[in-house]
């Protein structure tokens, strides 16, 4: 800890480490100094002049956002002089600011409104004509209303410093200054909406949310994003059973306020017109609508019959369904159907990873480590596109702590903007490239290795062995795609492993063999679309649980409409092995959560799998699955609880061969993204991975 400095703020004795800014020292003492341009973690501005305070012995008021604490300093934050200056600043701000609060999106959660309420004058003295310019649309999601803008430059900074995108700048001068895209009349960016979220007023508004509701009409549901494997918390604004926006303004959760386009906007698939509302049953070669009763009876009847004659049944689980659902699905498969053939789409080689780590849980990197590690080795992954939260945290680590980043990638990635060293290597050849950095890495205090799905099998073992031999503390994060890839593996949606990586008594067929071996008599697919990539070479009876009529569902005999992650409860485990809890934002008519479908099917088949509600199953998981004895209070308070997976034995080369990286970009998310309007209207989609061309190196 740095030396403590003692100062007095509003009569309170405050101790703060040397170098602390007065505004933060005050905050630590419970004294709130208002500010628009000051923003934690971003470059200092001192432009809004709201945080001016009186410092004894200094004739002028001082900006507390750029003033470091000094021993013996006496600060007044609410003296008549200070309050008068704040009132004056607000009066200036309101001169050209339209008072359209009654229709402004920000009305009710506007920092300017709040400040005026607290310090502003009740009447206005400005009787001149306001400066007005027309509103502009920068992109499908970003609108800019210049008159409302108070030019705090938060948006410019978050885009530049936070994301490394540099899409926004300032044009003109003086009172007619405006925020504008650096690429002319439109944004070329990640469309993450951070600029909108960070805007203290209603200047930047979201194309999805604007003029839809008043903030206080919404219920705010904190849940976990269903898209990539980072597991960001997103707070959904729900009105009348409709999700109107996603943000995380309260900065809770592992992502703080960070969200990418998917977390902030791509919840819209849930209300897509193609959403399955009723079960479908194949009659005369065509899928037709049926009642739940008919559909469940059909499935249960066939499953019972197939089981009785010992038919080959294949089960394909999902990397988006909850841990509870995955756990029950494998029990259903193994116990009720008696089949060992169960698998899921593996986007990363979690098995080889956990085998290489060998139970040394201290080697497992967590989300927070990306922000605190002294050095980062980012290998075989386009972090900014595939893991936007981790990319944001890695950049923040470099900006705030000067972390050294080493990049191994087959093509340009955004992390190269700040990387200490970049090595080009083909996918799968990352270990050799990493080894070439050995001498430099050895000099680091500690290291966090992040690697993508291309590092698998032998390559993965070699990379971990290399890290282990560096002689410094090294942690690893094996990057998988989708909200619950890790949970799917942890819960035993694997042919060779039971939950918690306990060896299965009989090793079943993997996904490829199941589908392409041509020997299945039934295939049960839950929340996955395996036939998008592979062919089914058999005449199996196919049951699909999904939200949409995917390629797989189209071939099904029975399709059961499933609820999305935003329509159910349960837990998911992110790519760093942290468990988080979903909250239900919507109730849907027609579709049912997969867990409920399992329960109904079990009842229909007359098998007893115990109580099948999310809470009871979670209790069972905590009791039975090694590594899942996580801290319940952390989950209950919306936190991310790390799991401690045990040592994994018996991983085969087939397991590694089954890994198929998803290849999703910032603007895709498997089959689901086809049904997100917002993900399909973004013009600036960067195309494939490792092709970053938009942002120049700094």
């Amino acid at each position, binding site marked *: 800890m740095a030396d403590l400095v003692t100062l007095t703020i509003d009569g309170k004795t405050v101790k703060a480490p040397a170098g602390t800014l007065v505004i933060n020292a005050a905050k630590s003492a419970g004294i709130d100094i208002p500010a628009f341009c000051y923003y934690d973690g971003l470059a*200092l*501005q*001192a*432009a*809004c*002049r*709201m945080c*001016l305070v009186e410092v004894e012995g200094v004739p*002028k*008021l001082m*900006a507390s956002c*750029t003033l470091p604490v000094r021993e013996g300093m006496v600060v007044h934050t609410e003296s008549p002089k200070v309050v008068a*200056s704040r009132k*004056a*600043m607000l*009066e*200036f*701000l309101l*001169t*050209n600011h339209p008072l359209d609060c009654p229709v402004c999106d920000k009305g009710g959660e506007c920092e300017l409104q709040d400040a005026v309420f607290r310090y502003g004058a009740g009447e206005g*003295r*400005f009787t*001149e*004509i306001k*400066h007005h310019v027309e509103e502009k649309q920068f992109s499908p999601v970003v609108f800019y209303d210049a008159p409302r803008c*108070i*030019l705090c430059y938060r948006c410019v900074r978050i885009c530049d410093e936070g994301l490394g995108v540099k899409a926004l*700048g*300032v044009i*003109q*001068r*003086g*009172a*007619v*200054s405006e925020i504008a895209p650096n690429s002319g009349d439109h944004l070329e960016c990640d469309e993450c909406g951070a600029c909108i979220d960070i805007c203290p007023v209603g200047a930047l508004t979201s194309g999805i949310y604007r003029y839809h509701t008043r903030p206080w009409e919404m219920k705010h549901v904190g849940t976990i994003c269903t898209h990539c494997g980072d597991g960001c918390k997103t707070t959904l604004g729900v009105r009348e059973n409709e999700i109107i926006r996603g943000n995380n303004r309260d900065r809770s959760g592992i992502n703080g306020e960070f969200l990418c386009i998917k977390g902030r906007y791509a919840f819209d698939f849930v209300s897509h017109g193609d959403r399955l509302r009723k079960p479908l049953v194949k009659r005369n070669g065509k899928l037709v609508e049926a009642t739940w009763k008919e559909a469940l009876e059909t499935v249960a009847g066939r499953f019972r019959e197939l089981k009785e004659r010992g038919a080959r049944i294949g089960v394909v689980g999902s990397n988006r369904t909850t841990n509870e659902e995955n756990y029950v699905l494998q029990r259903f498969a193994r116990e009720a159907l008696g089949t060992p053939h169960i698998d899921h789409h593996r986007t990363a080689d979690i098995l080889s990873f956990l085998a290489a780590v060998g139970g040394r849980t201290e080697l497992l990197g967590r989300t927070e480590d990306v922000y605190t590690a002294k050095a980062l080795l980012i290998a075989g992954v386009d972090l900014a596109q595939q893991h936007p939260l981790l990319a944001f945290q890695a950049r923040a680590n470099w900006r705030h702590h000067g972390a050294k980043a080493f990049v191994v990638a087959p093509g340009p990635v955004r992390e190269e903007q700040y990387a200490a060293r970049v090595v080009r290597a083909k996918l799968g050849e990352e270990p050799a490239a990493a080894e070439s950095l050995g001498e430099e890495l050895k000099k680091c205090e500690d290291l966090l290795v992040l690697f993508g799905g291309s590092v698998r099998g032998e390559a993965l073992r070699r990379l971990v062995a290399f890290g282990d031999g560096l002689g410094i503390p090294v942690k690893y994060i094996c990057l998988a795609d989708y909200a619950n890839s890790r949970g799917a593996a942890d819960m035993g949606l694997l042919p060779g492993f039971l939950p918690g990586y306990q060896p299965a008594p009989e090793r079943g067929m993997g996904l490829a063999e199941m589908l392409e071996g041509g020997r299945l008599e039934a295939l049960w697919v839950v929340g996955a679309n395996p036939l998008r990539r592979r062919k089914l070479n058999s005449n199996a009876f196919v049951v699909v649980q999904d939200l949409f009529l995917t390629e797989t569902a189209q071939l099904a005999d029975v399709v059961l409409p499933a609820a999305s992650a935003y329509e159910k409860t349960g837990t998911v485990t992110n790519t760093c092995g942290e468990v988080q809890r979903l909250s239900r934002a919507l109730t849907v008519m027609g579709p049912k959560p997969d867990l409920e479908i399992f329960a109904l099917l079990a009842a229909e088949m007359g098998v007893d799998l115990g109580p099948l509600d999310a809470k009871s199953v979670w209790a069972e998981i905590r009791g039975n699955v090694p590594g899942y004895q996580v801290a319940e209070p952390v989950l209950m308070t919306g936190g991310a609880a790390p799991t401690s997976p045990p040592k994994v034995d018996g991983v085969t080369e087939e397991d590694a061969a089954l890994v198929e990286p998803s290849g999703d970009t910032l603007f895709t998310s498997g089959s689901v993204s086809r049904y997100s309007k917002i993900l399909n209207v973004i013009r600036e989609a960067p195309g494939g991975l490792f092709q970053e061309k938009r942002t120049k190196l700094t």
Partner: protein
Amino acid sequence: MLYNEPSELEVKVLTRRFGLENSQSLDTYLATEGYEGFRKAMEMSPEEIIEEVKASNLRGRGGAGFPTGMKWGFVPRDSDKPKYIVVNADEGEPGTCKDRVLMENDPHQLLEGMAIAALAVGARRGYIYIRGEYRYLIEIMDRAIEEQYRKGYLGKNILGSGLDFDVSTHTGAGSYECGEESALLESLEGKRGQPRIRPPFPAVSGAFQCPTVLNNVETFCNVPAIFRMGARAYAELGTPRNGGTRLFCLSGHINKPGVYELPMGFNLLRMIEEVGGGVRGGKKLKAVIPGGSSCPVLKAEECDVAMDFDSVAKAGSMLGSGGVVVMDETTDIVKVALRLMAFYAHESCGWCVPCREGTLWLKKLLARVDAGEGKPSDIDLIGELAENMLGHTFCPLGDAAAMPTISYVKKFREEFEERLRKASEAAESDLVVL
């Protein structure tokens, strides 16, 4: 070329080569004691050079009047970063036109001053930031620089001093704000011309985050004379704590407007009468802006003042950049206040709230009052808004807009009231009330 006849009262130190044939050429410069100052300085240690500048009582000629030697002394010479010399030639203060004549008539004097500064702080690179409107001066300076390189006065090991020094010009893009030193540095680095958070000051972290000596053209031009004449002789030209001479730019309602070099402490009334030939058309003097538009106005009866930094400050204004604007009795003060506020509203960079919004509001308010549409409360409002800007802005531009405005309202309130009275008379109804 020269724009005005010299005055007999002038003390020609910086302007001694003005009017000489080929005054822009290095040969002329060398023939008239050019680089004598540098030759003396190169025999001195950096500490001695800085001490000499301190002893000369030279104060910054850009406007703030900060002691130059002290500023140079702040540069951490032991820093392993490169050091820079930057010349502020972004002369934009209304009423000021001295740097242009210095660069136009004696470009080598500026370059010699820079080279001495480079010796003092160990700099190897210099920039002359010239406002874009001074296109012709950029060409003159570029020619002078080229000539110096050709003849060994720039480049490697200048005059055997061991000093390697490179200089180039940099063009401003037309923003008044870029005359503020930190905004100038941002602009020099190719960024938007907005001021920086200070501290750190340029001496510690200036151009490209390296230690930087940043002075006005006239300040650098004084330096060769200090070393040529000796600090003491130079200091004695002026008043205590205000060494040397100063270029005053006389403009406005005066018979002989022009740029005149006079000793520091020269009486303002005497300057108007004897140097400037008195108020034009024999009219009565009403007011004087003593140091460029950013300085509070002096009423005629306040003008019996010695023109040095301290005396003018005591009189409630500033010596500023030496732009003396003379206003006769016919001057409409409301229009003056409006014209200047229109300038500041146009030039406010927009970075901070009080300056950005305050200048525009004041401009609109003054325009309304000037147009005869004011309300009685407007006069107090003008003063109050200016007070609300004063001391609250990020950089001095806001203060520069506020201070004179406050002075106009305070010192010429009756003129504002008169304007309102006329307005209300004009608005009287012609209808006969029965």
